[in-house]
């Protein structure tokens, strides 16, 4: 188990380092912050000075090695736009995103699992068709469109909920619904197919034939077994929640790392983009690692292979 753990942690570290490298290069390929920071028609001397000030005059590999060298010591550089520590900006924003992602995930689980069960026990009947259609529609809806529609209906027309910003619990509702759709759809689909596979199995039939109430059979016998793939998929969904937060936060002016990411990319604020990538990739890779490890605890066969 110790060697397995070590190998998985090392693999995860390599993934994170590769990711920082890719983002480092893509960010620099996409444009130059100096051109955006200086007014139109700034002189070549002004550009050279600013390029030097920002440390962008050196070759990329040198810049990258310097970045990693400092990052190891906890220094992720200064935001080019805010002239403040990049990691501080990201960490300041992280709780807002965590709150939004967590509430969305809870919403998705609370709605997705019952919908999946409903579809499975009404397999190929009206209930199943309604849920499946709804899920397909949900999957087809782009989240920026859904977000704007929710704002127009509940924020503008009905005036029930705040349009944007973070002013307490009521502000959380619309962005959380928007962000929860994608994981909700996935959870409902996985629950449905897993339940459909479980319900005809012998142990379920036995429980049923023993005369146990149907609700009990579904809840205590079928669902418990059917939930294992659902738990797996929830781990994977975390990455989707963080990337989905970029668009959702932008629409609802939610002060999290998603909206910070967009602003930073637009301004070619490399250090912040790098810090965001590092944090989010660590979270996603870490979550997947935990899911993998939890399997191996549950199933010894994985450890040996």
């Amino acid at each position, binding site marked *: 188990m110790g060697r397995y753990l070590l190998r998985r942690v090392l693999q995860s570290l390599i993934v994170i380092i590769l990711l920082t490298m890719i983002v480092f290069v893509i960010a620099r390929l996409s444009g130059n912050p100096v051109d955006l920071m200086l007014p*139109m*028609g700034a002189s070549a001397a002004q550009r050279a000075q600013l390029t030097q000030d920002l440390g962008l005059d050196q070759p990329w590999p040198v810049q990258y090695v310097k970045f990693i060298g400092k990052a190891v010591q906890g220094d992720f550089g200064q935001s080019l736009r805010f002239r403040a520590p990049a990691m501080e900006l990201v960490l300041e924003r992280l709780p807002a995103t965590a709150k939004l992602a967590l509430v969305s995930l809870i919403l998705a689980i609370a*709605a997705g699992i019952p919908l999946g069960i409903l579809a499975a026990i009404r397999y190929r009947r009206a209930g199943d068709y309604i849920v499946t259609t709804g899920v397909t529609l949900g999957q087809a809806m782009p989240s920026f469109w859904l977000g704007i529609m929710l*704002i127009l209906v509940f924020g503008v027309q009905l005036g029930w909920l705040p349009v944007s910003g973070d002013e307490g619990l009521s502000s959380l509702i619309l962005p959380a619904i928007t962000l929860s759709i994608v994981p*909700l759809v996935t959870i409902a689909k996985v629950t449905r197919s897993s339940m459909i596979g479980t319900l005809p199995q012998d142990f379920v039939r036995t429980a049923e034939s023993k005369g146990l109430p149907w609700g009990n059979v579904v809840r205590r016998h079928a669902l418990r077994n059917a939930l294992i793939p659902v738990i797996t998929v929830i781990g994977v969904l975390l990455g989707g929640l963080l990337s989905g937060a970029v668009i959702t936060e932008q629409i609802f002016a939610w*002060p999290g790392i998603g909206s910070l990411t967009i602003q930073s990319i637009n301004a070619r604020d490399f250090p912040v983009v790098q810090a965001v990538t590092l944090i989010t990739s660590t979270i996603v890779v870490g979550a997947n690692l935990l899911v993998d490890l939890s399997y191996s605890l549950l199933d010894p066969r994985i450890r040996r292979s």
Partner: protein
Amino acid sequence: MLAVVAGCGSSETTTTGEPGTTGTTASGTTDTTESTGPVKVVVAQGVDPTTMDPHQQRETPTVNVLLHIYDPLLERDGQDPTKFNGVLATGWTQVDPTTVEFKLQTGVTFSGGEPFDAECVKYNVDRLLGLLPGTEPALLAYQFGPIEGAEVVDAETVLIKTKAPDPLILGRMALLYMIPTGSVDADPEALMSEPNGTGPYNLVEWDRNNQVVLEAKADYFRGAPTVDELVFRTISEASTRLAEIQVGNVDIITNVPPENAAEVSSQGNAEVKEVPSSRVAAIWLDTLGDPILAKKEVRQALNYAVDVDTITQEVMSGYGLPVATIVPPYWVGYNPDMKPYAHDPAKAKELLAAAGYPDGFETEMLLPRGRYLLAEEVAQAIAADLAEVGVQVKLDAVEFGVFAEATQARQIPGMFYAAWGEPFFNPGGMLEVAVKSGTDGFSWFDNPEIDALIDKALSTVGDEHVKGLQEVEKAIYDDPPFIFLFAQKDLYGVSNRLDWSPRSDEWIILYGATVK
């Protein structure tokens, strides 16, 4: 899907119990404003301020926050942008072509208690230009190139010296917001997040990327502001800003897209206000690298071919003001005798034939996406107009970062579309950088006679300066470096309860605004 709606309904009950902050909850928009609590105004901007240090910034959204915390010596007039009003200065005179004398307010202090005096003005100029020992010029210094320094005469008199006669000196000084003497000596970043100004407001909270909250100073030297609390919210999505102004949660939004103008007033909470801007759109022509565009007749033909009037009326719904060259009527140096090129395709064809291109030619236009008002729609209309006289233009719309890099690297196709912002309401800056020859700036044009006219106009002050600019305007009309287009109009959404008018310089000044 059912569960989603249910979740929404159950949480709704929690919102009603929430302590109501005045005018911010979605439901109570019009009734809460009548309560006697503090008067609050909310402004929504697309990006966050970058700093609280007024010398280390370059972006209008940052200025809009800082101008409420700090004061300049003088301020551009909101109605006539060629005039100035004193703030920390009570008066000024041009004592000689390179010196302006400012008389200062007495008894003004900063929020931290430091006095404002002539010594303080000198400290600000020195700090900005990097003249303090061991310092470098601040970010804003790029606007102050011609300034040599400041000289203290007595506590309430200061001289600002320029290296050569500078017609833009007052406009430059209006950009310089005063910080206390010595405030950044020990720590150059002391003001980055903790401002200290003489202005009408103090900073209460800066929640980065979310909002800035300011509170009024009761003892402000020009009188306490009538708006007690000022909030600048960062809402980067245009449709969200639009929704917020519709329901009345915010009082001012900037850059309303013309196609959405009608929506602003749809709930009866706000209306659209327009103001001519300091941004002039034009199509830059590569007269240096493109042998066809090098010909004067061709460039004149292009100007005759484009129907600017129809474009501003139809494509821009009236939110553009055609200009003869690059100088709108409300700028210094406007020449009232000049009229825009007429739309005359026949004449354009004649000129093209005379230049040796009776069947036109093919070229390409670079334009930044989502940066300038309706740029893509306007560019398409221009391409259609040019096609009528045989000039086939391929449009290349790119993200602004790519555009900026291409133009700075001087790798442009035959032409590109840009709207030049001129904070001084004077074509001097654009002439210097975008018309005068030289590959260091933003110019793809070389005419020694026009260079000489520009130098002459920009080395004089007063009436001579204005006359010089008018001469340049005539010269570039005849030998056009651009396809001349229009001055943009800026659209704001303004809540009905607020008595405030937008300004041409894109600055949002709420000192003096009142809430009904």
